[in-house]
């Protein structure tokens, strides 16, 4: 100050210095990640890579502005360090854990035992409380015999086992679908709590977007799991169909050729593109943007206050 440099210039210089330090770290990190993507990644990964670098630059900018704002506002340097340490700890370690745990405290998922028992109940029992398998089996045999115009299962021109497996699989799938959808809905409610609390610090929002861009978030896991389930169902349907067509009556033993197995396409999964990944995290991007705005506003206000104090 004695040399005639104003507080704004000092803060501007410090901001530039801090950003330069952050930039060195960010560039080194970007180079290492670039090598990893180049060696291991797919073609679409460069778009995700770019998104990640922009995100990390924004996140670093939020902290640089916060550090400078606090430094300009708090007079004692030891208090500044203490406040910044507390802020960083709260944002990085405390807030994510609180946001993660509060959703579970409010919305509780069932235990494995409760979940399994509920599925088992719905598989084995009809809505009226009577056993599912007896009624269903009786009805299926009756309907099948009628549709093929025969009086015994042994006389069926197709394999009854295939028909039975198709029916029971459809029932199991319906029950599993119902319970897993309920579970996913619980997870989504917990996630909404998490999102609502992501404003507690910039770290949670940055981490969520980072996970999304890297393809390790809940949305990607669900997309993959749905694709795998669709494939499983097609595979089971094809096998049941082969049993139905390839056997007769009560026959169970079926030998299929190599051509049959080769006719079933291999499981292929296409990772969604970067735009889809970013679209899943619009809220968190908004939160991060708000933090950037807040940090910038706080920095400007602190700089003004510092200038007034000096005058």
């Amino acid at each position, binding site marked *: 100050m004695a040399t005639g440099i104003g507080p704004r210039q000092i803060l501007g210089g410090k901001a530039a210095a801090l950003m330069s330090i952050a930039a060195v770290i960010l560039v080194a990190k970007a180079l290492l990640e670039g090598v990893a993507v180049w060696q291991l990644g797919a073609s679409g990964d460069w778009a995700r890579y770019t998104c990640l670098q922009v995100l990390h630059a924004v996140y670093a900018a939020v902290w640089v502005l916060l550090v400078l704002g606090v430094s300009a506002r708090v007079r004692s340097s030891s208090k500044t360090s203490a406040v910044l340490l507390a802020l960083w700890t709260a944002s990085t370690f405390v807030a994510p854990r609180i946001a993660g745990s509060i*959703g579970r405290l409010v919305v509780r998922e069932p235990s494995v035992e409760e979940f399994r028992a509920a599925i088992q109940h719905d598989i084995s029992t009809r809505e009226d409380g009577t056993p599912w398998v007896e009624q269903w089996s009786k009805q299926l045999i009756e309907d099948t015999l009628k549709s093929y115009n025969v009086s015994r299962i042994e006389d069926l021109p197709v394999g009854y086992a295939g028909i039975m497996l198709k029916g029971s699989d459809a029932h199991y799938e319906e029950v599993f679908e119902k319970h897993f959808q309920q579970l996913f809905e*619980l997870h989504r409610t917990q996630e909404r709590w998490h999102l609502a609390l992501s404003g507690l610090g910039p770290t949670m929002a940055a981490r969520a977007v980072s996970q999304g861009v890297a393809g390790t978030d809940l949305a990607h896991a669900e997309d993959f799991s749905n694709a795998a389930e669709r494939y499983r169902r097609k595979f089971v349907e094809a096998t049941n169909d082969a049993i139905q067509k390839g056997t007769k009556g009560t026959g169970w*033993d079926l030998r299929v050729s190599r051509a049959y197995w080769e006719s079933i396409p291999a499981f292929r999964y296409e990772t969604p593109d970067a735009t889809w990944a970013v679209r899943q995290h619009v809220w968190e991007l908004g939160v991060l943007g708000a933090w950037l705005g807040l940090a910038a506003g706080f920095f400007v206000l602190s700089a003004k206050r510092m200038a007034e104090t000096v005058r």
Partner: protein
Amino acid sequence: MKAVRLEFGLLSRETAWWTIAGVYAVLLLYGCAQSVDRASAQQKQVTAASSDYRERWERLRRSANAPKGTWSDTRSASLVGGPNSFAVMWLPVDGTAALSPGESLRRSRVRQVSIYKAEPEPPLENPLIPAAGPFDLSFVVLWLLPLGILTATHTAVSASRENGTWPLVVLNATNPIRVALLRVALPSALLWGMSAITGLGAVAASGGTTADGWGRTAVWAVSLAMYAGVWATASVWANARAASPAAAIRVLGTAWLAAVWIVPALIDVTACAIVPPVNRLETHLAARELERDLDEKLPALTERVYAQHPDWRPTPEAVAAATKPIPGGPASRDARRVYAPALASVEGTRPFEERSAQRTMAVESLTSRLAVLSPVVAFQSLADGLAGTSITHFARFEQEVVTATEAWHGFFAPRIFLLRDLTAEDLASVPTPPGGQLKFSLRDVLWPVGILTVWCAALLAIVGRGLPAFRR
């Protein structure tokens, strides 16, 4: 005593202290609520699993007198010993579980005893929660108690230095070192007291415990005092030796970050690098290889068993009855077709399971040795040991499950290979697995207690030399 009263009065007028204590109290209560909730969820899981087991088996035993006569006949030995009729063993949970680190409370305490391979099922929780880490009592005392002590003691000691009143203290007090020590000891003791009382409350709120459990809780509280002591001593050292209060907080902040985050993470990484995890894919591939071309392998598999147990060979009548096609069902009720491959699969994957168990114990052993590097890891391991959630406890329990499973195979295998349907008497005499037992030994926690003691002693020795700095 007068000095204590005086310093207590000064502390009670300090706004920063009230802010730190207030925030810490809120976080402590929230962490306590989470721990109690987790412990209660585990208690409920154990209760649900045990009552489900009892009900299933009562139904099975009743149904043995009234068989349904279809291919889902519950008298079939392979069905009874199988995936829907498994027995259950559990590791009991008492109130002290609330003191355990949250990660340990995520581990299921229920295991299936079955003649088929039964892996413990993962919890159905949202993947977001474990990704962020648990916020429980253990997190608060392991991570935030040190931070509370460091900031509160720094404020108490360095405030006078920063505002220039410390020279007055040096001039007026008969012993400025005692004043400085009191300024560190008082807030540290108060924060420790809050934590210890909350810990006791958490144990009580989680259903209480036995006299032995309360003894372990007392050991936890005393060890927590040592842990708090390590951080208070570190604070004395940094505040005495640092060139300025700002330098002191930077040193303390860095030490905290290194101790709670960097060193434990490095210990984990080192342990995993030295003892790499067993590839689960290898286990699955081994099991799949055994299941391939089953029809060709089946006679050899069953003959191998009959060679070892000639008295298990069924009569031709029993074979004819079992292989008679059932209308609307499979061509055969020959349980050996299901059990023989399952037995081979269990045997085939056993080496991987054993390697995996050995690896877990090796990591535990290595981590406990490396805990010398961090009082945080030492206290975490101590809390796990006292709460009955350590790897050692789980390993003992897994061994009990293995023994019970072997007894289960011993009961069902002869009946399956003899192609005998189970009678009501058989079902009544199925070996009931014993309830798991939490066995505690002082030896389990001696090592972490020793580490904490060494840390305390080493820091006290270092601090002793730095104390004269407070005379300036």
